[in-house]
């Protein structure tokens, strides 16, 4: 779903719709929900760089998001101006991302997931337990939203527009990344890591840079979140938060430009709708997670299309033999992994844990200089 392949009229219509949200939504509460969709879309786009394009599923991303928010909040509390606090937050997140990357890229696949999970929980532990620094469970408040170029962001519509600008920048960066040689080489490391090594690419470095790129947009999303809520608490760094953003990426469709955006909209809206009726959001999150992974691992939109097609064949036309669902799911795996859930990792299973990363850092003997 590249921007270039989408009809220009649709892009213009979507832009117009996004730009006029405060006008036709009216109620500032819903404008605020729209802002949150956009900021979580930035977060999901950031995770998609790793989970989608690099095939490295991280469960520690909420930690990066939280580092950014906490750094900015604590610097603001200490009396720094907004610009310094924001710069400090981005810098702190980039440094943390680099540390995460160095540790987690010792492995790929499941090992990567485990290490990022443990690292994310460590950050959660700091946010929750280091009460002197982070104020523990009570969280940190900030006095006011920033006013870039003298424009106040205090109202819901003005904050929405600021978030929209950042979101469009993130989307443009992702589109550029998608089309760049860097994006192509990252996809290459996902599909054929060993071949990329043989071609002379430094697989480890490509993954490392992708992690930093992802970390940068995580920090931007974390800042937006802090400004939106004017409050941050350990909850944003919990495993549930990492799982939520992963659900956004997976439900919309991984390694696509607009999938994570659609996923963010679906999850945020669902969270608000569900929370209005029942208090059990985590239960619903779990059920959706299990349902999507079991029945439509390729994402909600393609999955619904497939299941609808199956139902039509099954009930309205020629009845096929049993087991068609399995067959329907197969082509994904056959054309190579298009997403992290599409099939087992291309590496042999005994290399999932650590061996591969080491291998790929050595230039292979036959590589061109």
């Amino acid at each position, binding site marked *: 779903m590249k921007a270039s392949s989408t009809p220009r009229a649709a892009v213009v219509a979507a832009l117009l719709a996004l730009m006029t949200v405060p006008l036709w939504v009216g109620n500032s509460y819903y404008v605020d929900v729209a802002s949150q969709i956009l900021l979580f879309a930035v977060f999901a786009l950031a995770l998609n760089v790793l989970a989608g394009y690099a095939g490295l*599923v991280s*469960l520690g991303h909420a930690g990066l998001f939280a580092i950014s928010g906490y750094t900015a909040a604590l610097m603001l509390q200490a009396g720094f101006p907004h610009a310094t606090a924001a710069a400090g937050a981005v810098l702190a997140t980039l440094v943390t991302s680099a540390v995460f990357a160095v*540790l987690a890229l*010792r*492995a790929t*696949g*499941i*090992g990567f*997931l*485990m*290490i990022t*999970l*443990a*690292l994310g*929980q*460590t950050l*959660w*532990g*700091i946010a929750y*337990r*280091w*009460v*002197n*620094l982070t104020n523990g469970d009570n969280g940190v408040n900030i006095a006011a939203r920033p006013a870039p170029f003298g424009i106040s962001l205090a109202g819901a519509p003005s904050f929405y527009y600021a978030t929209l600008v950042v979101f469009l920048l993130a989307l443009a960066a992702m589109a550029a990344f998608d089309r760049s040689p860097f994006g192509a080489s990252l996809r290459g490391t996902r599909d054929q890591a060993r071949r990329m090594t043989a071609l002379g690419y430094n697989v480890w470095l490509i993954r490392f840079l992708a992690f930093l790129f992802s970390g940068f947009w995580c920090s931007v999303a974390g800042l937006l979140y802090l400004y939106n809520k004017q409050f941050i608490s350990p909850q944003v760094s*919990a*495993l*549930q938060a990492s*799982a939520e953003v*992963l659900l956004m990426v*997976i439900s919309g469709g991984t390694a696509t430009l607009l999938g994570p955006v659609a996923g963010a909209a679906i999850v945020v809206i669902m969270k608000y709708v569900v929370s209005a009726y029942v208090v*059990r959001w*985590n*239960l619903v*999150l*779990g*059920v*959706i*997670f*299990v349902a999507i*992974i*079991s029945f439509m*691992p390729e994402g909600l939109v393609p999955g619904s299309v497939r299941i609808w097609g199956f139902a039509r064949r099954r009930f309205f036309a020629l009845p096929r033999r049993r087991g068609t669902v399995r067959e329907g799911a197969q082509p994904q795996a056959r054309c190579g992994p298009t997403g*992290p*859930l*599409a*099939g*087992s*990792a291309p590496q042999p*299973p*005994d*290399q*999932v*844990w*650590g*061996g*591969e*990363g*080491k291998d790929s850092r050595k230039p292979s003997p036959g590589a061109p200089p």
Partner: protein
Amino acid sequence: MTLWLTLAVNSIAFGGLLFLLSAGFSLIFGLMRIPNLMHGSFFMLGAYFGVTLMLPAVGANFWIAALASGLAMALIGGAIERFLLRRLAGKELAQVLLTLGLSFIVSDLCLMIWTGDPWQPASPAELRGVVRAGGMIFPLYRLAVVAIAIVVAAALWVMVDWTRLGAMIRAGVDDAPMARVVGIRVSRLFTLVFALGAALAAFAGVVGAPILSVYPGLDSDMLPLALIVVILGGTGSLLGALVGSFVIGFLYNFGQAQFPDLAYVILFLPMLLVLVLRPQGLFGKGAS
């Protein structure tokens, strides 16, 4: 001095609990190649089952409650493996995420059923006393926990190293496709090991309840510990799980006592060292 010794005893007891939790985790990971992100949930759910059975209305004895809870969780774990994970055979990432989704469901259901208040059952009456030795006082129950962990470790070791079943599990851990070729029904082993791991975790939950109490969030407190133990010890290695458990038990308790703010960070340091120096874990088999 007394403080340090008490802390050491607590650390060993906590290490024993961690071993009960992470032995199954490690075997599941070694055999099925997935970290079971529900393992903390098994621990918590098992503990809740146990305290419910011990309520005056039911009135089960502590040990019966612990065994019954383990048995119930073995059935639940086996069913999850058979009916949910099996559908996703070969898609490891999907399996991991499925266990993650299930862990959210379990934690929210537990909150719904057992409310947000912590439950702390009394330790069994016969173990409520203390042992005095050399002017020092040791709580008997914690020593009993260590003894249980050692007995379970020995039993697991005998099973894995000396029985036919253990040989099949080892074959599955080393090379599942090859094991299948020579006629071992690896899929049945998956169910069995998953059920065994779930039972051990639930049993550990009940045994740990008098020490740790049971509260919402116990699952996400325990899961990272199991993860770190396995990263430290190496996947699929019982010896690794044993050593890792005691290392983490000590670090966790001493960290909590000395630097309560940074207890989590201290835990993470040995993991960092092992990842940098020996990514396959202390006792793991290196990728050839």
